[in-house]
């Protein structure tokens, strides 16, 4: 059964230095509050997995939490580069970060396979792409029925999954609505999971085939209102597109980034 904890306690108890951590949310429901708590607790040497690293990973990388990044699209959507990611990869600041790069289709399949308890995902992918030349994780298998060569990637089975959701009920069942991304998959694929939620309610109000994570499939739940900002939570608040645009300037400069990190993350308390 899911444990209700403060975000501080959940991050402290379930994320260790050196862990492989997947914080997901495909544009929607990105777990920023949890990311900031990881920065405040100065976790180190993390291997981070995420299809779209986004600002949350730019911040974690700039704060020095990260050793390796597995991803498939690393930008500030609609704006430009992730400058902290580029600074780490290109200049080794604040530390060098190794990257392992996939396509979205392969990572989506790898999460699906992880949730399905399989060691590999099979897809019709990477045909004539150079990505397999630079990512040794990409192999191929032959279909025993047709002889077709198909791409194979290892499934994703992180130590910890971190996601944000709209709400949990008091038994610890979690509802995710709207763009559900790979959130169900990452929670089921991970050894442990932390779910932050906008609110805790008596009744989820879930429709019959809603995306619900049962309490027994979740490790810890922490209430973190507005915990996905500046991304958004359908039914609660909209995406702060202006902040995404402003981030470009903040992140371009190491000192400006550090000042922002101090003011907006390090000197803030945990949300709950």
């Amino acid at each position, binding site marked *: 059964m899911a444990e209700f904890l403060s975000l501080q306690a959940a991050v402290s108890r379930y994320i260790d230095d050196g862990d492989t951590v997947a914080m997901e949310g495909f*544009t929607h429901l990105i777990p920023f509050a949890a990311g900031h708590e990881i920065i405040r607790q100065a976790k180190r040497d993390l291997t981070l997995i995420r299809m779209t690293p986004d600002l949350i990973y730019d911040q974690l990388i700039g704060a020095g939490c990260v050793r390796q990044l597995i991803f498939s699209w690393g930008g500030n959507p609609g704006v430009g580069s992730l400058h902290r990611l580029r600074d780490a990869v290109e200049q080794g600041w604040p530390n060098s970060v190794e990257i392992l790069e996939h*396509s979205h289709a392969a990572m*989506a399949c790898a999460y699906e396979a992880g949730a399905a308890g399989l060691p590999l995902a099979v*897809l019709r992918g990477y045909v004539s792409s150079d990505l397999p030349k630079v990512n040794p994780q990409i192999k191929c298998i032959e279909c025993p029925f047709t002889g077709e060569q198909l791409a194979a990637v290892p499934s994703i089975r992180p130590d910890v999954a971190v996601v944000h959701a709209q709400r949990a009920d008091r038994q610890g069942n979690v509802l995710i609505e709207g*763009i559900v991304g790979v959130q169900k998959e990452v929670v089921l694929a991970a050894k442990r999971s932390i779910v932050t939620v906008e609110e805790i309610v008596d009744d989820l109000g879930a429709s019959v085939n809603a995306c619900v994570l049962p309490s027994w499939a979740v490790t810890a739940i922490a209430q973190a209102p507005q915990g996905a900002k500046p991304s958004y939570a359908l039914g609660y608040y909209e995406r702060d597109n202006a902040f995404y645009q402003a981030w470009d300037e903040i992140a371009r400069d190491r000192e400006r980034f550090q000042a922002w990190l101090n003011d907006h993350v390090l000197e803030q308390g945990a949300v709950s």
Partner: protein
Amino acid sequence: MTLEFTASEMMSVTAARALTNDMTCFVGIGLPSEAANLARLTHAPEVTLIYESGTLQTKPEILPLSIGDGELCESALTTVSVPEMFRYWLQGGHVSVGFLGTAQIDRYANLNTTLIGDYRHPKVRLPGGGGAPEIATNAHEVFITVKHSKRTFVEAVDFITTVGFGRDGKARDDVPHIGRGPTVVITDLCILKPDPTSKELVVTSLHPNVSREAVIEATGWEIRFADSLETTPSPSAHELDVLRRLKARTQAHHAGQS
């Protein structure tokens, strides 16, 4: 009466015209998204737009800044998980057109969105592949829209993130279950299509008031022109009006908050 329009507007309108009502289009963010929604708001109201965030048959009033803005989900027929999107809808063969942008494109329509320079020591690191590698092979055909410049149109891309027709134009030959690949590239100067045999990109239509020299100047290889070179029809007043209002709505929306 002559309408005034920018080269960007010419590009968006031309790209939009490539879409028809009966297409199911997997839309990349940025220029493709602008063109696809312009098509939907003008001549192709029934065109089906799909974004990789899982939104099926979406009808946004404003252009999304990211691939997963709330607007996409709220205006969609339904929203599925990202694994389902890539497995059932794209790989399952239900996408007729993949509409992509790119950072670099070469003679054989290969796309590079990974990096400029060497992989281990890049001059410029780009965002990476995202959905494009499998959109380009699993969609029945691919449309590309990108601004024309010597930096973008290169003889051979530094890195094939997403295959067009490979280094020799033959990458799709005899590959089972692969789409036709890029069938049209729309830039702010012209329209290019792959030669039916060699698969080399050839200019088939020049936009109004664009010279052959301008295209040659903006292309990093010795570009060929079709024998029957056409002139792209200008945007109509209606197309320009819809495009400008769409962009104004979008800008006003994204500037809000923070």
